[in-house]
């Protein structure tokens, strides 16, 4: 296990190093200069140069890359060009929206997908299965931003049950915060739930055909008992993979949903930063997201081991 962890750690570090170089290279070729963006159309050339010097943009690219990377190693992501606040603080603020939103959506999608998937698998080929599968086909096909638009139209503008967007902040209580995340979470969760339901169902169906399920039945377990005691845990492995993928997707992929609901999340931060050429923010957020994906994958691997003893003993 130690060797395995060390190897994983090594490849993790290597991946991050490559990722940081790729990110920096891609972002630095972007046309547009943060200083002239900030100073607008009437700015004089000497003013722009002065601001560039102030922002450190007059240094060579290699110097900037090295100082960015070495800063990150010490937890310092640099200072935003446009906001002039530490990037780490900005990210921390936005994480308080994006992380709960992703978790909320993931919880919703899991809560929908598990029962739906189990139900469909247990009624394979019958009307209930067809209905669930039809619904998931539709769920997968609906663009989430379109769904979000419809949700706002119905629940915010017409019924006025939820606010149309924005984030009241956690200062006003957990409930108020959750309330402002409800519609976005639903918009994000439903298509994900559709995918997860399908995975859950097919994974369960695969397991139901396994020999050990027949063994379990031969011991006297009913179908339901066999499913719960022997099927679910074995079916979890592909499901866990998808949950891991979905979490990473939700963290970064909420970008359009955050736009529709004007939530101050990570996605919108990066979107704004791209358009204002706040390169250091873009670089750091993308880096953070890559880091998150890699760590989530690592966590999923560990979760596999918890589910499957065969992986535990493998060194």
């Amino acid at each position, binding site marked *: 296990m130690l060797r395995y962890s060390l190897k994983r750690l090594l490849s993790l570090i290597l991946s991050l190093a490559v990722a940081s170089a790729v990110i920096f290279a891609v972002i630095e070729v972007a*046309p*547009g*200069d*943060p200083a*002239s*963006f*900030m*100073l*607008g*159309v*009437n*700015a*004089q050339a*000497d*003013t722009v140069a*002065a*601001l560039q*010097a*102030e922002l450190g943009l007059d240094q060579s690219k290699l110097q900037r890359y090295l100082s960015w990377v070495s800063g990150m190693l010490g937890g310092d992501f640099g200072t935003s060009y*446009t*906001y*002039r*606040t530490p990037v780490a603080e*900005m990210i921390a*603020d*936005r994480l308080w*929206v994006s992380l709960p939103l992703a978790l909320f959506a993931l919880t919703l999608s899991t809560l929908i997908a598990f029962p739906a998937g189990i139900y469909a698998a247990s009624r394979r080929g019958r009307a209930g299965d067809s209905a669930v599968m039809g619904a998931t086909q539709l769920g997968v096909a609906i663009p989430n931003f379109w769904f979000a*638009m419809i949700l*706002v*139209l119905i629940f*915010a*503008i017409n019924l*006025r049950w939820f*606010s*149309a*967007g*924005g*984030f009241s*902040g956690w*200062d*006003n209580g957990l409930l108020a915060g959750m309330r402002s995340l409800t519609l976005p979470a639903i918009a994000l969760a439903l298509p994900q739930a559709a995918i997860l339901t399908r995975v859950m169902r097919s994974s369960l169906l695969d397991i139901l055909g396994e020999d050990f399920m027949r063994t379990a039945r031969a011991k006297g377990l009913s179908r339901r008992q066999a499913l719960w005691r022997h099927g679910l845990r074995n079916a979890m492995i592909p499901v866990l993979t998808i949950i891991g993928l979905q979490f990473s997707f939700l963290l970064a992929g909420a970008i359009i949903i955050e*736009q*529709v*609901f*004007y939530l*101050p*999340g990570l996605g*919108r*931060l990066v979107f*704004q930063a*791209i*358009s*204002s*050429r706040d390169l250091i923010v873009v670089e750091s957020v993308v880096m953070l997201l890559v880091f998150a994906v890699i760590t989530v994958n690592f966590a999923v691997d560990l979760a596999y081991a918890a589910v499957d003893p065969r992986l535990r003993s493998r060194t």
Partner: protein
Amino acid sequence: MSLKSFVFTASSVLALTAGAAVAKDSITIAMQLEPPHLDPTSAAAQAIDSVVYVNIFEGLTRFMGDGSIAPLLAKSWEISDDGTVYTFSLQEGVAFHDGSAMDAEDVKFSLDRARAEDSTNAQKALFAGISSVDVVDPMTVKVTLAEPNGSFLFNLAWGDAVIVAPESIEDIKTAPVGTGAFKLADWVQGDRIEMARNADYWGEAPVLASATFKFISDPTAAFAAMMAEDVDAFDNFPAPENLPQFEADPRFQVLVGSTEGETILSTNNKQPPFDDAKVRQALAHAIDRQAIIDGAMFGYGTPIGTHFAPHNPAYVDLTGGSAYDPDKARALLAEAGLADGFETTLHLPPPSYARRGGEIIAAQLAEVGIKAEITNVEWAQWLETVFRGKTFGLTIVSHTEPMDIGIYARPDYYFQYDNPAFQDLMATLNATTDPEARTALMQDAQKTIAGDYVNGYLFQLAKLGVAKAGVLGLWENAPTAAIDLGAISWAE
């Protein structure tokens, strides 16, 4: 949560619960863009001015809602006969939010900082004419100009010329300390800025005890937020197509005014075939302004025939000279040797006037044989490729600085109009202080650029405000980007 924001939240909860009994003294105003930081003296972002102008920071003079100039921190002033020395008497008893007194030293500091060598002031040109700033006594400042400048008081009213204190300049971007009637209470980046009344304000106390600026960039979200009554007012509502719905709804009022934004089809005068005035004229006749206003702005906006705001007394209506006439446009192109039309590029920045207007213009140009290839760009990219790189054929942009016809006197300006006669005209105008002579000169200038068909002149951008029915005191027009909280109150 900081103690300050806790106190603030608690008080706003109290204010909400008490709302039924007394008139409301808080307001939530939405705007489309969030300020990157809160220092109006080192960035061009209008959103900064919208939040801090006269609310947190005050200048020697200020714009009023109707575009006129009024004294603010300068109680009064004297101008020397040759028009080069301005002596300002400052308001007594003015204190910054940190308690320190505002005096002549602060004024000198602010003006010197803006015009310094390493200044990062986005409108540094405003201060270019100052040769010295001298402290006469703590309440008197003398500003000496190199030559007379008819618009100097006007220049001092800009947000870029507000008075700041040297003690608090370090953190001005996140913790602005000014002399205004409101203080920054909290800033949740990406979401909102909260302001609280400055109890020690030197002037008339505002009606509002607190205000929240909320940032909603997406037009759909803007509509939803307004309709769901999440916000009380929207400064510069981004979706004109939704205004009829607000007008029809008794819960809301719609304020349609004018901005200083001349929306033009900027043309690269140095790039063939636009270096031929006939081609530019053909361009002007190929464009149906009214269709653009109807299609892109849903009817909001005043057609213009030159680069000048129609609400300005010196405005001349020159739209007739570039009336929609596709046949004439085709004929002009043929004269210029381009009977088969030509291809060019059309760069469109993000605002909907540009994106939608661009689609319409491209279709209209196609009618006369001009194939304009649309490229949608972000502002940063626009600045880089169009404004600085000057690698473009056409672009659509609204020039929102007040009284900015002077840009036509700069041959290196991105549309690259180089007319020595016009440059002389502007030099004369700058040196002229007599109002009538100034008007005549300005009218000449308008006619010159219209006659040269420098750019395609489309319309004056409308200011479209939406608010709940009970909100009073919102600016209808936008002489500058500002939300004057001091003027706002709720109807009883």
